[in-house]
């Protein structure tokens, strides 16, 4: 070839030194024969000059050293300056950045209605380099000492720090080994491993309030009938009820309502007041996540009965 550029490495640590050389065999460059060859460089648009010498084979070689390379991406052009316009003869692309940092705070949540497992993590510092991020997982047993069937990598959308593993790759009610791996030209980093049964990190769908009544009649008590979500009716749940009045908007919480008894009874309500009720549930073993609050239900208690 007429001319070419070599760099010690196309990908380097940000701030480190780049050494490059441009070799021109003028006898191979139609139109340069016999001309006095002068080599110059351009880093993107910034002109630079190297130290030029003649190689044993008679080619002109220019060496360039750039220390504290501070651009994450740059094109290094080699020009030959002849009589006419300087000619671009060769080029090298340089990427600079950092090895990937360890992804942190990996958490996963099983969505029971969509039947998939979504995991999220904090990516840590940007390596500035093209990186392959993958949520890796494998079916396992016991406490994940032995990995079994590997599951295809889950590749997050560009720039996203979460990924969703579809149902067909999950093994429910059995431990799975899950971690994040980030790889770029300067290295690889892996998050801590999670050893979880997807059903232990399930977020339940909210329960549904079915009816609210003043019971027993003419007392300050109310009875709330409710149902768990169909998608989690097979799961033993503990739920909590909350209510508030418009007058003082703070919520009052009634904890430890355990499914499957689908009626709950509470007293101490003010007469002739409009209350707003909501309920949410979680696994009775407290593993996994609270559901969202159920849709609200407004109920106005009856007026106080006339005395005597």
């Amino acid at each position: 070839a007429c001319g070419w550029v070599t760099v010690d490495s196309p990908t380097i640590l940000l701030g480190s030194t780049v050494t490059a050389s441009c070799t021109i065999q003028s006898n191979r460059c139609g139109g340069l024969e016999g001309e006095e060859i002068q080599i110059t460089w351009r880093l993107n648009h910034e002109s630079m000059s190297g130290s030029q010498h003649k190689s044993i084979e008679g080619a002109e070689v220019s060496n360039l050293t750039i220390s504290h390379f501070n651009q994450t991406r740059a094109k290094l052009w080699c020009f030959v300056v002849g009589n006419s316009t300087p000619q671009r003869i060769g080029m090298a692309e340089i990427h600079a950045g950092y090895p990937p940092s360890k992804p942190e705070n990996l958490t996963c949540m099983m969505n029971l209605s969509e039947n998939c497992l979504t995991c999220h993590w904090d990516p840590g510092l940007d390596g500035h380099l093209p990186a392959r991020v993958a949520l890796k997982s494998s079916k396992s047993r016991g406490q994940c000492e032995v990995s079994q069937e590997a599951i295809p990598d889950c590749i997050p959308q560009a720039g996203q720090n979460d990924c969703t593993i579809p149902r067909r790759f999950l093994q429910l009610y059995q431990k799975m080994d899950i971690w994040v791996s980030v790889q770029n030209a300067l290295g690889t980093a892996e998050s801590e491993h999670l050893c979880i049964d997807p059903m232990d990190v399930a977020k339940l769908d909210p329960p549904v309030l079915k009816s609210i009544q003043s019971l027993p009649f003419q007392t300050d008590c109310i009875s709330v009938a409710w149902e768990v979500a169909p998608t989690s009716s097979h799961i033993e749940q503990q739920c909590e009820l909350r209510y508030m009045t418009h007058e003082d908007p703070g919520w009052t919480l009634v904890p430890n309502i355990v499914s499957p008894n689908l009626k709950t009874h509470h007293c101490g309500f003010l007469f002739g007041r409009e209350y707003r009720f909501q309920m949410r549930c979680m696994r009775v073993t407290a593993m996994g996540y609270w559901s969202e609050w159920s849709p609200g239900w407004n109920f106005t208690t009856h007026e106080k009965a006339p005395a005597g």
Partner: protein
Amino acid sequence: PLPEFSGDQDFQQFLQKDLEYIRKIKGDVAQVQELVCTTLQLCNEEELMLVKQKLGISQAPLDQCHSKTFQDACFSQIRDGLQIYHGHLALLLQVLPAHSSRVDALRLDVSNLSTNIQQQMEDLGLNTVTYPKAEGQGTLPSLSSNFDRQASGFIIPANFKRFLEMSLRALRHLTTA
């Protein structure tokens, strides 16, 4: 060899997970039965006694689970029965083509549960031998007509639901909760 295991914490957790998973699958089977009723107009098992007998689709065996002293064999029969129904339920993909994703999801749960039981038996050192099946058991008869296929689409989930109910009763005996 099972009884002294039943207090063991791992074993209890294994049981609770299986009980929950069976309850989930049973709920999903009920939904499939509803689809068979609305889509195929087949809702009443009484009307299909004759064809059921003719087709000879037998219930997966759970005889080892009836005895008071619980046997490893009962776990093996539950595991093997789940595999049989995983195969049989494939027929529903033909008779309920518009609901294939739901049938696929159900079959995936059935095979996951069967694998879980197998692995848990191995982890707990139980005897995982597969019991010989009676001749023809587990294989579906050749279904020559559309009617036979649709009738089987009713019979299989009905059989499977009974199988799950019996499995639930058998495993509940072992829970100390």
